[in-house]
């Protein structure tokens, strides 16, 4: 297993190199001019020329790329072209914020999606199953920004009026006052809910169909013929085999969340990776954009590897010797 993981990590290196090359060339060639950004969009030719030399932009693109990657792998990610802040530091902070949201969203959504999916498969074509099917389609169809605003409107302001208190129950923006688990919950509850609606909607459908397949299989009949209760047959024998498909989807989705929470973070004004990306894009800040894209790529690759490992844990047939 260790050798397998090691091999997979080694195999990820060329993928990442290729991705970084693409990102670097595309952003540098077609993105905003870093020198102009640094000179506050002025047309001061002296400033532009000086900055070009300073940043090494006067050299050929391949040389710039090798230089950039050399610094990048050593942890020197440069500074923002707008704010002069350390890029590594801002990405680190943003990652922490996004990771919180992604972790709780994925944890909550997997539990709900698995429960709903197993229930729906077990009671396929029952009123309960149709209810969850309808809910899932509504969840998939609902735009995040719209549902986010609805949540903010009702679960903060209206709920406050309804309970007739002065204090809001759930924060709609990150709250600077006070820390601790309770404040953390009040702060994360709404964005996690909004994120989960999307995730649960998709994942529960996956779980339902893979569970339906498993419930049809011969080993389920064998388990029943041994005298096991239906509940045990479903939750022990069926679940274990049906999880493989969902775990793969969860891991891939979770990896993508590190770069893909743009709308949710925007609606709830959270300073995560999505917000960082939007700001960098708006500012034409290629010094942030390039490392940002490489980091999100790394996460997708890590979580894909994670999916393969979990798949092997669940299904001994794909376990690597």
């Amino acid at each position, binding site marked *: 297993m260790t050798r397998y993981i090691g091999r997979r990590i080694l195999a990820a290196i060329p993928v990442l190199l290729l991705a970084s090359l693409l990102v670097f060339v595309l952003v540098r060639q077609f993105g905003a001019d870093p020198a102009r950004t640094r000179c506050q969009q002025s047309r001061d030719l002296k400033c532009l020329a000086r900055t070009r030399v300073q940043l090494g932009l006067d050299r050929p693109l391949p040389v710039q790329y090798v230089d950039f990657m050399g610094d990048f792998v050593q942890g020197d990610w440069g500074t923002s072209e707008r704010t002069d802040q350390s890029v590594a530091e801002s990405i680190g902070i943003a990652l922490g914020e996004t990771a919180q949201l992604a972790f709780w969203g994925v944890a909550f959504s997997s539990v709900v999606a698995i429960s709903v999916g197993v229930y729906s498969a077990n009671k396929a074509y029952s009123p309960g199953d149709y209810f969850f099917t309808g809910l899932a389609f509504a969840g998939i169809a609902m735009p995040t920004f719209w549902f986010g605003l609805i949540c903010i409107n009702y679960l903060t302001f209206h709920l406050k009026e309804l309970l007739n208190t002065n204090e809001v129950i759930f924060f709609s923006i990150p709250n600077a006052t006070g820390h601790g688990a309770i404040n953390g919950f009040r702060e994360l509850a709404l964005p996690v809910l909004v994120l989960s609606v999307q995730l649960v909607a998709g994942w529960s459908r996956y779980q339902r169909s893979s569970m339906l397949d498993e419930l049809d*299989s*011969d*080993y389920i*009949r*064998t*388990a*029943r*013929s*041994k*005298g*096991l*209760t*239906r509940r*045990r047959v479903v939750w022990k*024998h069926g679940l*274990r*085999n049906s999880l493989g498909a969902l775990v793969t989807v969860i891991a891939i989705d979770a990896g993508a969340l590190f770069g893909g929470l743009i709308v949710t973070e925007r609606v709830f004004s959270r300073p995560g990776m999505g917000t960082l990306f939007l700001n960098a894009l708006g500012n034409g800040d290629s010094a942030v954009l390039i490392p940002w894209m490489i980091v999100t790529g790394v996460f997708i690759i890590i979580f894909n590897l994670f999916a393969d490992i979990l798949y092997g844990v*669940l*299904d*001994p*047939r794909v376990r690597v010797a």
Partner: protein
Amino acid sequence: MTIISETPTPLLVVDDLAVEFATSSGAIHAVNGISFTVAAGETVAIVGESGSGKSVSALAIMGLIPPPGHQTNGVVRLASQTLTDMPDRHYRTLRGRNIAMIFQDPLSSLNPAFRVGDQIVEAMTTHGTAKAEARTRAIELMESVGIANAPRRARDYPHQFSGGMRQRVMIAMAIANRPQLLIADEPTTALDVTIQAQVLDVLQAAKKDADAALLLITHDLGVVAGMADRVLVMYAGRIIEQGSVDEVLINPIHPYTRGLLAALPSLHTNSRAPLPTIAGVPPNLLSDREACALAPRCEFAIDVCRSSRPLLEAVSGNQENHQAACFRAHDMAVLKVDK
């Protein structure tokens, strides 16, 4: 239509069992009122081609007819208990303990995600055996069905076993609680020919070991000859002939049984001549017409075969336990099988 059995109280009584499958194009009559008994310790074989209702009958005895199927008529009794309409929480305690089943494909019938030892253990713990005791017994069972190195093999997964070994695991699992009745649904069909005989020997030994009766479902008449005491021949959801193995295989009455036997190659068959087959196809089970189901395929069919349905009746001049459902049974008895 109850059959007189040698023993006074048969272990299993199936009386007028009917099973239908509801489909969008109507009800499929998979089993149409079959009755038979199995005495304690006896081996009864059910033969018939695919779709004749053999497996569905077995699943009905287990109370595990898959949806959209359901038992529409008849009663199944095991020892003194009526299984039909028994609440599942009660039925469950009999499954795996009093009646156990061995399925056709041992690879798909074992859970791929659990160790085989644990799957055998589970068959016992679910009926109240202590875990440690069940573990010891699981190893013994695996040894008894001829799995070498059982303590280590118990920790392996089904995909690490060969087909024959997997079926041995299934047999070990089925006899774990020493059931009174063992149902084997085509236990060797999915296996290599070279392995089949070994697995049948194991099954025979396991049956003796557990002191169980065996209901053996097969389409292999060679298996019937080697294993069974009595045989039931099914066609289109009905028993069309039954009797002791010797009677039915040596003096078959029903044209269908004769057709099955004629289709069996032997060492004396001219290997260049095509094997005889039964012309035509099995009937559509959507309609249950008042006629002999074989009539369209039967060279002996007369008008009455097409207008009413023959009942299972004792064959005259033969032993009382040999029965056939054929209007021309008397003529057929005279007409000897050309060997």
